[in-house]
């Protein structure tokens, strides 16, 4: 017991992004204490600087060719993990940019906002590296708990309170369910490390216990990524939470859930694909279809994007199903394309969704409304933001030459590659759904371009930070759409992970 605690060999370089983040978190907290009330906005600067420093460390590690496995393989710093860490940090940076004015102008605790945001991000960076049930769970909780508070950040708004309590209860239940599944997995295999679980699970006979164990773990994730029928909390939470928090929840937090799922499915349950692919297949189909159909009817833009994010989550589940279908037929070459697809989709979705939210925040600063009709005639007085919003919506709809097409394309590719009736069916369902989705995305576009503006409409002023966020998102969406090889590294990642 005591000997086990002897000097561990910790590779501090490999942990540097997390260490930088932790230092930033403490700094933000202390700064919030020291700074006088009127200059607490400085904490946003510290937070964004810290994020950039952490990002720089990720970049350093990226050029450090060696792949590190820490803590006996429970924590991996490979290119896959680094790519995701990079994504999480960039997404956070953009979130901070779109938050600055919103949080600064409203009646909010500023220091705490960035503190909680960064805590959640710390969980995400850990999640990217987690290759062990325990670190996976700890990371997931680190992501979730601060966001429960963030969702309720509009303290005096009942909707925000409702959002927070709903989100918290669902989060707690899903954690419990997932933990129960994980404990059964541990009981069956005696292992917590995913690579070891993968070996043991493949050797086990198909049993009801195993089925229940896998099912419960997946159910927990289904809640986290708001897959239909476990999605109903998302719209209320998204609408009630402050808009930058919604952006963060729908992008980074959701991505955290997906990354956890990637880890556990691709590194753990691959050998037993026959037992779970149908579950994911059904979840994917339902999420796409119901998410889109419900989004059609929304009149509030944030609610619409909430349902759209449910549907987009469905699209992201398709490669998981494809991987399962292929694995259950012992067709191994799909793993690569499916893995790539999830990651590409996450990155692209992050850029376009954050961009759309940035536009919404910019417009809502003037209109003080979240109704889709409040976008009417935007083109007549604020053409720049209109064009940008149109780009993001077109990208979400998957229309070239914006990045969304490539994400959808890789998703289709994984499904068709898996083949069989299941692969083709889900691809066609996804195809039909992308048309349905186009309808409600274009509904906003239609309001902005085709409808007359209100008589008293004033041009939308975009503050500097928001402008920077828009530049980053637009740049990514257009660049990736025109030249998707920017994500060349991701191909590398998949190649390295799956030989």
């Amino acid at each position, binding site marked *: 017991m005591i000997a086990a605690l002897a000097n561990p060999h910790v590779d501090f370089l490999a942990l540097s992004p997390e260490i930088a983040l932790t230092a930033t978190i403490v700094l933000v907290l202390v700064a919030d204490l020291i700074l006088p009330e009127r200059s607490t906005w400085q904490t946003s600067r510290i937070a964004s600087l810290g994020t950039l420093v952490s990002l720089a460390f990720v970049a350093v590690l990226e050029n450090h060719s060696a792949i590190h496995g820490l803590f006996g393989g429970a924590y991996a710093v490979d290119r896959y993990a680094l790519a995701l860490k990079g994504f999480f940090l960039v997404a956070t940076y953009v979130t901070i940019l779109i938050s600055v004015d919103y949080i600064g102008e409203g009646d909010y605790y500023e220091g705490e906002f960035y503190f909680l945001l960064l805590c959640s991000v710390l969980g995400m960076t850990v999640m990217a590296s987690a290759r062990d049930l325990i670190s996976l769970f700890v990371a997931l909780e680190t992501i979730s708990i601060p966001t429960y508070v963030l969702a309720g950040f509009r303290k005096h708004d009942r909707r925000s309170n409702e959002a927070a309590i709903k989100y918290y209860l669902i989060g707690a239940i899903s954690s419990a369910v997932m933990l129960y599944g994980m404990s059964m997995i541990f009981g069956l295999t005696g292992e917590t490390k995913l690579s070891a679980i993968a070996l043991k699970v493949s050797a086990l006979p198909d049993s009801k216990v195993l089925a229940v164990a896998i099912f419960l773990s997946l159910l927990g994730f289904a809640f986290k990524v708001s897959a239909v029928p476990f999605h109903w909390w998302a719209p209320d939470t998204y609408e009630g939470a402050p808009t930058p928090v919604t952006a963060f929840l729908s992008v980074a937090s959701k991505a955290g859930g997906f990354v956890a799922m990637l880890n556990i499915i691709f590194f753990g349950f691959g050998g037993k694909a026959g037992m779970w692919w149908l579950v994911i297949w059904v979840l994917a189909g339902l999420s796409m279809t119901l998410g889109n159909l419900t989004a059609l009817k929304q009149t509030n833009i944030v609610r619409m994007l909430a349902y759209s994010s449910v549907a987009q989550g469905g699209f992201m589940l398709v490669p998981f199903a494809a991987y399962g279908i292929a694995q259950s037929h012992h067709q191994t070459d799909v793993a690569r394309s499916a893995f790539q697809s999830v990651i590409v989709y996450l990155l692209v979705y992050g850029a376009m969704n954050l961009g759309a939210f940035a536009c919404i925040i910019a417009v809502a600063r003037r209109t003080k409304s979240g109704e889709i009709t409040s976008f009417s005639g935007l083109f007549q007085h604020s053409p720049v933001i209109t064009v940008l919003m149109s780009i993001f919506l077109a990208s979400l709809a998957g*229309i070239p030459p914006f990045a969304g097409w*490539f994400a959808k394309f890789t998703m289709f590719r994984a499904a*068709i590659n898996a083949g069989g009736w299941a692969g083709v069916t889900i691809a066609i369902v996804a195809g039909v759904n992308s048309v349905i989705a186009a309808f409600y995305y274009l509904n906003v576009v*239609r309001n902005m371009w085709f409808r007359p503006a209100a008589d008293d409409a004033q041009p939308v002023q975009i503050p500097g930070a928001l402008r920077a966020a828009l530049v980053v998102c637009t740049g990514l969406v257009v660049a990736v759409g025109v030249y*998707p090889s920017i994500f060349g590294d991701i191909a590398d990642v998949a190649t390295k992970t799956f030989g």
Partner: protein
Amino acid sequence: MAHGFDAWILTLTTFTPIVGLALVLLIPKVEEELIKLVTLLTTLVTLGFSLYVLKNFDFDHTAKLQFEVKKTWIEVINSNYHIGVDGISLPMLVLSAFITVLCVIYSWNHFPEPHNVKAFLALILLLEVGMNGTFIAQDLILFFIFFEIVLLPMYFMIGVWGGPNREYASIKFFLFTLFGSALMLLSFLAIFFKVKNGQGLHTFDIPELIAAGKGGITHGVQLIIFGGMFIGFAIKVPMFPFHTWLPDAHTEAPTVGSVLLAAILLKLGTYGFIRIALPILPEAAKSWAPWIGLLAVIGIIYGALGCLAQTDMKRLIAFSSVSHMGYVMLGIASLTSFGINAAVFGMVAHGLITGMLFFIAGSVQHTFHTREMSRLGGLLTQAPKMGWILGFCAMASLGLPGLAGFWGEFPAILSVFKPADGLSLPVFRTYMVIAAIGTVLAAGYLLWMLQKVAFGTPKDEWKDTHVHDVGPQEWMAWLPLLLLIVVLGVVPGLMFKTTDGAVKQMVDKAFPTKVEKGVAEKQPEAKSPAIYVKHLGR
């Protein structure tokens, strides 16, 4: 592969409008004249580039891809920036660059409400990128991207500058096309995974896919894959029963939008059939051909009957598009080099003639603020030049020999007299008869329109209005079109010479005739309508 300037010329032809677009966006909104000038110059330079391609094109080897460039683009999926033109794509590329210039000239003082010159011209430039790009793409993914790029600008053009029912028309146009292209993309992916190129890699490269043949795809799967592409392309053409978006889109679109839609956008679909669907999946094409032919003749008759039921001049022209594209598809369905040559000719001819008709309809509306034919009449007395041009175009459109329309329609009908080997003769000859009836109907509705709009005396409400006849801008935009309609009508060989080599090679590879070569040569030449017309053409 091309070298030096030749390696850049197609890229320049496609992406010069992007440069113009950037410039236009930088100019403040109020500087309208400057914006117009920059746009015009950009499109002229683009046209110049495309004429350079035309001039330096090696007409002795039209089957060969020329000005070819192949650069790595998306390594992950082995998709390349592979561009090039052959005899089939060259006329389309030049047509596209040409029509865009005319559209910019025409819109000089014909801006629909809400004015906004900057946005309108920016969209035209963006549209040109997609149109030119589609015709030079030699990679399925590249093709798909360009094919989709045209969607948004046209959507905005209809939605912002369109008629009263514009919102409905624009979203309908958009969703129909998007649905088709989603299925098309799935088909592309299926081909990607089923076929391997010479190096044993999966590929999206069109020439490589054609060379690789059908690979190991079973006939049933081929049929499904072809079906996906068919829906994608057929919606764009549009073929019956996928045509319903077209009358709405055309009716609501601003004049320039209608012209571009009719002249170029519809051709993306038929071009897709000739460039991709037929050569890559010839066996499936053969099984599908009778059905394509059937839908084509239904389209011909349905479109024609639809025309007769219209009261709106523009809607009538839109339905006539459905009918005319039916001839193009019928030529394609014959799967013979003769029919496909006719189809390509028909595409260009329809682009010129229907584009022209839409220009006139636009000017009529500009003058009278209505397109209701019951309220119009006596155009020949009030604006004789415009009336004569309308008459000329109606004649060209109904397929009067000596004008361009004839060479698209007549050979297409003839081609199904003897379709490719393995296709049922009785079925296709029935199609031929029905299509021939369609020409009579075409004459009927076009002359009817001419009579309503141009003949007679002006209606009372216009009696005292002073009507502007064809103005200088209109002459500048229209004269080139009118000249080309005559030139191509008199010397169709100009086109056939360009397309024949490429079409022939494609057909020979995809649908080799079972008859021994020696036997084929022994047949007296005059008996084959193909050779007859070709001689006539040259």
